[in-house]
């Protein structure tokens, strides 16, 4: 009996210490969305349960090792106890209730996360190897930064150009895969103004680790100002060069092609137009209109030395006029 009392006390002490230790370690990143509140609430209860169950097994195990160890010179066996059906039933049934309680809490918390605000702003998100593009259909804006107004639910309508990606902002907690051939939804209500990053969480190929774009939660006035600024830029884009530049953002080209000469997944565009391209098979060609058009529509036609053309999907949906605009833009990159 004495053993049980000691172990009982130790279990409680250990459970409390474990919980306090874990809790004070700051396990989660900053909480920046309404959905995170419900997830963190459940997580906290899970940490409580983990701490208790850890103590419940670990303490009697260590206690037995110390108190019931074989001492020097001791022979013989332990007590002949084969089992105890009541105990077995107890530790089958009690955990069952615990598990059901947590499953219920999980379902409840999921309901909270999915709560729909009919006034949610819709933003289109496109994932492609290896960047994100954001489109605000209401304003005709395309951007590589996701700006969100604080305390306003948004629903992201997400599509993929190539493989599976996953939209995750750790501070928002929620994660949703982006699957080719369908639209997945990501509903979030940012609650904390600040700069975050969306980080692709589903392995999507060579430069998966680089697939991060800024997510900026603004106060309503700053958000409105940004929208106004971007709308003005989009409206001003009347020249072929400016339209072409927007197209390269919208289609995610600049995720892989830099405009400052740095090497990303694909060749940089700086000074590309009109230059001589060296291919892996030793041949070469001048990057003229025909070459660039072909490279956009059939990336596999040429393998530029040092790059893998299979990284790029064929962009067959672009019209001749759009490609002409892109070429006009490329010509300005010198």
């Amino acid at each position: 009996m004495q053993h049980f009392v000691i172990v009982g006390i130790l279990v409680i002490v250990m459970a409390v210490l474990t919980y306090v230790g874990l809790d004070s370690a700051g396990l989660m990143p900053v909480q920046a969305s309404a959905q995170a509140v419900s997830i963190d609430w459940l997580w906290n209860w899970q940490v409580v349960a983990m701490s208790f169950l850890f103590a419940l097994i670990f303490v009697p195990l260590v206690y037995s090792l110390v108190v019931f160890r074989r001492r020097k010179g001791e022979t013989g066996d332990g007590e002949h106890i084969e089992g105890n059906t009541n105990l077995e039933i107890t530790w089958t049934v009690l955990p069952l209730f615990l598990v059901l309680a947590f499953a219920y809490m999980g379902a409840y918390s999921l309901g909270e996360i999915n709560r729909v605000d009919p006034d949610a702003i819709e933003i289109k998100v496109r994932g492609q190897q290896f960047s994100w593009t954001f489109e605000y259909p209401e304003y005709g804006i395309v951007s590589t930064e996701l700006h969100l107004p604080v305390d306003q639910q948004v629903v992201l309508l997400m599509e993929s150009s190539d493989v599976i990606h996953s939209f995750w902002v750790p501070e928002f907690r929620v994660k949703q895969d982006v699957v080719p051939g369908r639209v997945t939804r990501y509903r979030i209500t940012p609650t904390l103004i600040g700069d975050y990053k969306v980080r692709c969480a589903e392995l999507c190929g060579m430069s998966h680790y680089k697939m991060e774009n800024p997510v900026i939660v603004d106060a309503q006035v700053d958000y409105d100002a940004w929208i106004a600024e971007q709308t003005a830029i989009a409206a001003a884009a009347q020249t072929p060069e400016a339209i072409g530049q927007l197209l390269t953002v919208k289609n995610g080209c600049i995720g892989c092609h830099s405009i400052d000469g740095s090497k990303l997944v694909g060749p940089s565009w700086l000074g590309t137009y009109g230059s001589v391209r060296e291919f892996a098979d030793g041949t070469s060609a001048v990057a003229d209109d025909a070459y660039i058009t072909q490279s956009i529509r059939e990336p596999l036609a040429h393998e530029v030395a040092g790059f893998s053309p299979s990284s790029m999907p064929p962009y067959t949906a672009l019209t001749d006029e759009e490609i002409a605009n892109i070429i006009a833009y490329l010509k300005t990159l010198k």
Partner: protein
Amino acid sequence: MKKFFATAFARGLFWQFIGTLLGAGLITGIRAAMGLSVTDKFFFTEPAWVLGGFIGVLFFLGGNGAVTDWFKWARGINTPEVHEEKYSGWEKYFSVSLDHKVIGIQYTVVALALISIGGLFALIFRTELAASQLQFLTEDVQLFGQNGPQLYNTLMSLHGMIMIVSILLGVSGIINYVVPLLLGAQDMAFPRMNAFSFWIAVPAAVLLLMSLVLGGFDTGWTGYPPLSARAPVGMQMFFLGVFTAGWSSILGALNVIATVLRMRAKGMTAMRMPIFVWAAVATSLIALTATQLIGLSFQLVMFQRLFGMGFFDSAKGGNPVLFQHLFWFYSHPAVYVFVLPGLGVISELLPVFARKPLFGYRWIAMSSLGIALVGFVVWAHHMFTSGMNEYLRVPFMYSTLLVAIPTGVKFFSWVATLWKGKIETPTPMLFVLGGIVVFLMGGLSGPPNATVSTDLHLHDTYFIVGHFHDTIFGGFVFPFFAALYYWFPKATGRRMNETLGKIHFWMMTPSFFVLTLGMMRIGLLGMRRRIADYDPALGFDTTHLVLTIAGYLIGLSVMIFIYNFFNSIKNGEKAEGNVWNSRSPEWQVPSPMPMHNYDQPFEVVGEPYDYGLADSKYVEFSAPAKSAHK
């Protein structure tokens, strides 16, 4: 060296090489005749490599003699039921043997070799992660047609699958060696199929490693399309390797079930079987019925690539999420294939070293079956964020959390077994105890992933990476080492060095806690899994450096183990008797065991774990004369 080239192992590899060239040459010839391209980046075209890889496996098995008897029978030639062992030394283990003990050791040694390779891969990419920014796997590096980040992805992906195959082989190794001994059987039910199951795993491992040099693949071990439909030709070698290894698993499991059903000693009723046998049956039921799904899902992607069949191509009406359902229908239960035998080892060894009966034998036996059955209806918890139908998520959350119940029964029963025992702690027991605690960490970090809303944050982060390394180390690696230390004297008549064993344990265990707890910590804070590099702004540099050092310490401890293992075969302390003072039948006879195990059959006359009950016996050997009469 000359002796080595004459072994079945070397002949198999030679014929696999020839077969691969022939198969690839055949396709290349057909393509040339059809006017198609005949060479590609890796010399042969992709279809040529695939058929080559497949023919190579067949040639390996034909060339090394694993199927010779079957062919002879087909041609009406009789062969002896039992072949005389041609070799007595190390060559025996490189030849085709029908003795379950030899096959068990073959499995185990190949598993150790693959663990070393998989571990080496882990240390390479762990080193890259020690600091943010790419240090040596940069984009300027070129090796095997891959640049640095691609090579990172390949090594990371191969680490996963090589380890999984090594675990499957390790599981088979222990089961093959131990189960017939525990049952009192002369051998497995189908010795030739047993040899076949082992030997087919060897060319499978070769195929997996070939993927590294044929451009690699960047999908992780999960191979999700559409990414896997675009990856280099290495992807196909990976698919083919897994497909081939699956045969080993399925046929091996069939053999175990038949053996347990048909070849138990007299008096060994279901509830008097050693508890490890229950675990072996539970694991075999899963392996027998679920492995097909990973083989088929990979085969479908192979065909999508080879023949343009759009199973998972949304542009052709296919569905990428369907793959995930097929894949996880095996790959989740597979986790229980890994851990059930390990948990069986824990249950088998605890009573021996606690000197007490196993607490709640029936409950532990049934909990293994319970885990196996529930394991079949939980697969979609890997897909909570995948975009599958939303209403499916809640029922899968409930079913997944149910796994905690039978797992809890095991934990409580283990603790109750230790309670009031007379606990000894030689090396095998240390690994058993380490296994329990590590598996406890894995078990407790599981439910947050099973609960949909918290999983939305945890999915695809280092939290998961830490969680499953805990479950696999606690559920397989620690018990595997315990089993090796424990049954080593049975196999060799010598025991492994205790001091080195304790160094192994005390170096590996703390390092492992640091490794997995550190992984979970940064995972919660935003570290995605499977990334070659991480944002320095996250501030994970110090933690990653510590994790890398911990990884190296684990590697070093395993090297100590491997040295101890091979050194003790010749130089270990003699131990031919009942080293651990166990009641189990295999320890009642001298070590090592002769070819057909027991000289006299035994009868089960009591409970297996009645430690502490005076004058009780588990088995009774019949007198020599009586057995002759029989």
